[in-house]
């Protein structure tokens, strides 16, 4: 009997299971693997015998080839208990289902699964997502290959190594992996957002709930409006609010504008007071006003601060890169009176007060101005950010160039549609 080194799942599922005496003892329905290994090992088989299905120990099984057919033989049908955690049923959870191809960074459908037979057991090595796998399942791969061979053509096959596969546990399939989605968390937020957008609502929310708050916030920012809406509406309030708190207030205001009012209120109420109030203020601005797109996450310094104090303060705050394009200087009433660049700060003596080095000629806009005027100002003075003041000249926010680009793209898209 020739030894089998590797085989496709589709070639053995549904086959008869024989005893050592070559008697039929059942039919193979599924294979159960232990997913805690890097290469998941088959530990049990789901077998239908005598009208009932049972999960049996796979260590009594051997698989070999006879006359081109795979033969499954077992010494013993010994029932075995498998833990829900860390076990995957190949047919039930993987075959024909969607998975994430970590290298291609997209959601694909599994047509077949490749397993390897080693002396220590049977292991899952790859999933087949190509056309060949599809045709093999239909029983068309072999005949088609025969036809194509003389023509020098082949059916394209695509295998993804198991290392690069992230199964998607739909809650419906009660697949519980203790290491759930650890692989997904390594992806760039915008890649992960693309993947999440392709999934159904429930799985979207499920994946989202497994991300930590920071990651969740980053991904939420990258999602398209529709997916944002879905995630915010189907996640538990607490989890959603935690993610929102990590996001810039202007982004949050944008998102909350898109979802049901009731839900938005619920989320705002669950957020920390400080964060939610900023968002609420921003949400009150009309759509095309500067106030609606500005961020309230900016840093400002008082006129009497010394260079040394300012730098120390910056070290303490550790602001995001786009928050320190410009450092704004305000008087005791929070009124904008100047701007200092990082360069000015670095080249000045430590004891110099800011009012001596600041540029008093600051270009700024009012929160009630139209967004269009912003574009002009930014391009005219080649700025990376513009400060926003209210009626009384008080500094209340900043518009960063990124947000304007986004705004422009949105307008362009609207025109195109």
């Amino acid at each position, binding site marked *: 009997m020739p030894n089998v080194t590797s085989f496709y799942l589709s070639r053995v599922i549904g086959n008869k299971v024989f005893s050592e005496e070559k008697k039929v003892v059942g039919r193979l329905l599924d294979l159960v693997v232990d997913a805690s290994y890097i290469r998941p090992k088959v530990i049990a088989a789901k077998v239908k015998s005598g009208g009932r299905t049972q999960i049996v120990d796979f260590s009594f099984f051997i698989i070999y080839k006879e006359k081109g057919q795979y033969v499954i033989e077992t010494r013993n049908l010994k029932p075995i208990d498998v833990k829900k955690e860390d076990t995957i049923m190949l047919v039930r959870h993987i075959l*024909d289902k969607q998975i994430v191809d970590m290298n291609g960074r997209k959601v694909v459908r*599994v*047509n077949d699964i490749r397993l390897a037979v080693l002396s220590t057991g049977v292991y899952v090595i790859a999933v087949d997502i190509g056309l060949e796998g599809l045709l093999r*399942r239909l029983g068309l791969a072999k005949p088609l290959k025969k036809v194509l061979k003389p023509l020098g053509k082949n059916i394209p096959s695509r295998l993804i190594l198991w290392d690069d596969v992230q199964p998607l546990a739909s809650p*419906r399939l009660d697949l519980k992996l203790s290491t759930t989605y650890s692989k997904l968390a390594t992806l760039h937020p915008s890649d992960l957002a693309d993947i999440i957008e392709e999934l159904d609502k429930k799985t979207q929310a499920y994946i989202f709930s497994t991300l930590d708050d920071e990651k969740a916030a980053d991904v939420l920012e990258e999602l398209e409006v529709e997916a944002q*809406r879905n995630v915010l*509406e189907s996640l538990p309030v607490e989890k959603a609010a935690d993610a929102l708190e990590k996001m810039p207030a202007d982004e949050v205001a944008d998102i909350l504008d898109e979802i*049901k009012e009731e839900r938005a209120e619920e989320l705002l109420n669950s957020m920390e007071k400080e964060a939610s109030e900023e968002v609420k203020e921003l949400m009150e601005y009309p759509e095309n006003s500067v106030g609606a797109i500005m961020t309230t996450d900016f840093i400002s310094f008082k006129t009497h601060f010394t260079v040394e104090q300012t730098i120390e303060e910056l070290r303490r705050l550790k602001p995001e890169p786009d928050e320190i394009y410009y450092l704004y200087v305000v008087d005791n009433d929070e009124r904008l009176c100047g701007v200092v660049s990082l360069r000015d700060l670095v080249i000045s003596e430590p004891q110099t007060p800011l009012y001596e080095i600041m540029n008093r000629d600051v270009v700024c806009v009012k929160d009630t101005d139209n967004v269009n005027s912003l574009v002009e100002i930014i391009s005219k003075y080649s700025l990376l950010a513009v400060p926003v003041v209210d009626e009384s000249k008080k500094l209340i926010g900043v518009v960063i160039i990124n947000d304007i680009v986004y705004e422009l793209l949105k307008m362009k898209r609207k025109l195109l549609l």
Partner: protein
Amino acid sequence: MAQTTRSTRLRNILLILSVIGPGLVTATADNDASGIATYAMVGSMFGYKMLWGLFLITISLAVIQEMAARMGVVTGKGLSDLIRENFGVKMTFFAMVTLLIANFTTTVGEFAGIAASLEIFGISKYISVPLTAIFVWYIINKGSYRKTEKFFLGLMVIYVSYIISGFLAKPDWKEVFKNTFVPSFSFEPSFVLIFIAMIGTTITPWMQFYLQSSVVDKGVDVKNLKYQRWDVFLGAFWTDFIAFFIVVATAATLYKHGINIETAEDAAKALQPFAGKYASSLFAIGLFGASLLGAHILPLSTAYAITEAFGFENGLDKKFKEAPIFYGIILLFIVIGAGIILLPNIPLIKLMIIAQEINGILLPIILIYMLKLTNDKEIMGEYVNSKLFNVIAWVTVVFIIILTLILLVQPFLNI
């Protein structure tokens, strides 16, 4: 107190409005070119005799559409996704071949509708069909399909004129009501065929896929399922309400005078009591809108269903090279669908009816898949079908199969 009840009522209305759409849109789109032709044929050939069938089909339609919508809401997945995930490749392949055949013939029917409607204005099909085919391809590629959809849906409102015409033609209302509730049947092949076509055009395979995807797109929450249900029921009622009046109007005018429908102009005659000499123009505009909408929806929804089931790249945001199979299906549907209409001496109206007959014959296959899925506790949880729904859906399936069998056995019995 009064304040709160008013605000809850307002909230309910808002909730209903927020989920309304998929069912009503699908239903309106269902009265497409072939649909109009079929209903007009039903009325002109058999008068009021099939109204009882339409009445019963409305119930089946409501139940079946509700199943699709419920599946969409509960699972968040499209029908072809669910078929693939739960029945494996072979069964999916079978379902997709069925869908492909049914949808392709319907697409041909839509192009027939385009040709027929514009012929009323004296535009040759050799001009109208290639131009609209290019237009359809352009709109789909440009991704502005959603907006166009609304425009064509608007054109279809013209069919409301059948309701007025139905009244103005002064039908024998007693006959109408009697036939709506008392069944009469004939084993004549033409009767059976038209009956199948009537079922096939009212409950179509493509609608189930299209509706479920629309519901998924809309992202309706399970909590709002009961409102989604109203949307679907309203849609089913609306589509058949129009159908009912097309049958009544054609029966009261064409059937009474023994006019057989052979061209679109014949079908337009039923509008004469209402629109007089403008009847054919009015009819042509409506038919054109309906056909053009269908010519967009069918290739697109087929391409989505098939690529989703087999895991090929899809989406209008991708380029042809990135999603060749997706765009390939759309292109083939448009090119071959329009191409068939360009064959000389093709009987347009007959073609539309044949499309619906094929739809009707293939419908049970898709319905059986749907029934299996909606009864699966693992998939639907507590939202599995009720007994009543199962009975109605199964009766529909069995009834169509029996009709098909009668059709197949008929020629042998006559010998």
